[in-house]
C-alpha cells in the first residue's frame, strides 16, 4: 500500500516538474510548481515528517507560490521566449549534459551503502523538530531571523522607486 502511494506521488512530482519545463506560459509553470510543492509535502507526510509537511504547504505553496504569481502579474511576461533562439545549440547541448549528471548522481547514490537495517521512523511532529531546533540548532535558528530581516530590508531597498 505504501509503495502504491509513493509511486503515485513520485509520478505526480516528476510529471508536474516536466510540465513546468515544457509549458511556455509562466503562469502555467507557477501552477505546476504548486502541484510539485504539494506532492513534496505529501512525500514528507509519508516519511512521518508532519511538521515539515505543514511548513512546506504554508511557506512554499502559500507564500512563495503567491509571490511568483504576483511577480508574473506585475511583469506580464510571455512574449520573451517566442522569438528566435540565438543560443539554440548550447541549449540542446544541455540535455545530454543533464543526462550525464543524472547518471553520475545515480552512480554516486548507488555506491553509498547505507549502514544499518530498517529502523522505526523518527517522529517528525512539531515537538520533536522544535526540541532539536531550540537546543542543538539554537544559534542557526536565531541567525535565520537576521537573514529574514536582511531579506526584508533588501527587497524594500531594491524595489523602491528612485525619486
Amino acid at each position, binding site marked *: 500500500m505504501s509503495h502504491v502511494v509513493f509511486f503515485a506521488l*513520485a509520478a505526480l512530482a516528476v510529471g508536474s516538474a*516536466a510540465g513546468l519545463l515544457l509549458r511556455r506560459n509562466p503562469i502555467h509553470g507557477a501552477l505546476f510548481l504548486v502541484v510539485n510543492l504539494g506532492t513534496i509535502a505529501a512525500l*514528507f507526510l509519508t516519511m512521518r515528517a508532519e511538521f*515539515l509537511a505543514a511548513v512546506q504547504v504554508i511557506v512554499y505553496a502559500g507564500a512563495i507560490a503567491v509571490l511568483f504569481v504576483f511577480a508574473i502579474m506585475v511583469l506580464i511576461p510571455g512574449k520573451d521566449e517566442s522569438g528566435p533562439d540565438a*543560443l539554440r545549440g548550447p541549449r540542446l547541448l544541455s540535455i545530454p549534459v543533464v543526462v550525464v549528471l543524472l547518471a553520475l*548522481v545515480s552512480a554516486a547514490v548507488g555506491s553509498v551503502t*547505507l549502514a544499518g537495517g530498517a*529502523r522505526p521512523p523518527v517522529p517528525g511532529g512539531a515537538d520533536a523538530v522544535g526540541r532539536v531546533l531550540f537546543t542543538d540548532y539554537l544559534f542557526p535558528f536565531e541567525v535565520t531571523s537576521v*537573514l529574514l530581516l536582511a531579506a526584508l530590508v533588501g527587497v524594500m531597498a531594491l524595489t523602491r522607486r528612485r525619486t
Partner: protein
Amino acid sequence: MVPESYYVALSAILFCMGVLGVLTRRDPLVIFMSIEIMLNAANLALVAFGQRHGTTDGQALVFFVMCVAAAEVAVGLAIIVAIFRQRRRLSVDELSSLRG
C-alpha cells in the same frame, strides 16, 4: 515502509529536472521556479537520510533550507522586477551587462 533509497532516487531525478530547466529556459521567472524544484529535491533527500540515520537533524536542516529559499525568492524577484523596470524586457540572454 518504502525504502529511503527510493526517495533519494526521486530526489536525484527532480534535481536533474531542475538543472534542465535552469539550463534550457529563457524566462528568469521559470528559471527561479526550477531552482525551487532543485531546493525541494535536496529537502527530500535530507529528510530521507535523516530517517535512515534515525535522527531529527535532517528535518531541522530542511527548516533552515526553507528559510533561505523564502529569502532567496523574495530578493530574486525584487531584482527581476528592478531589471524589468529599467529595461522593459526580460530575457536572460540579453542580461549581459556584468560580462567583462
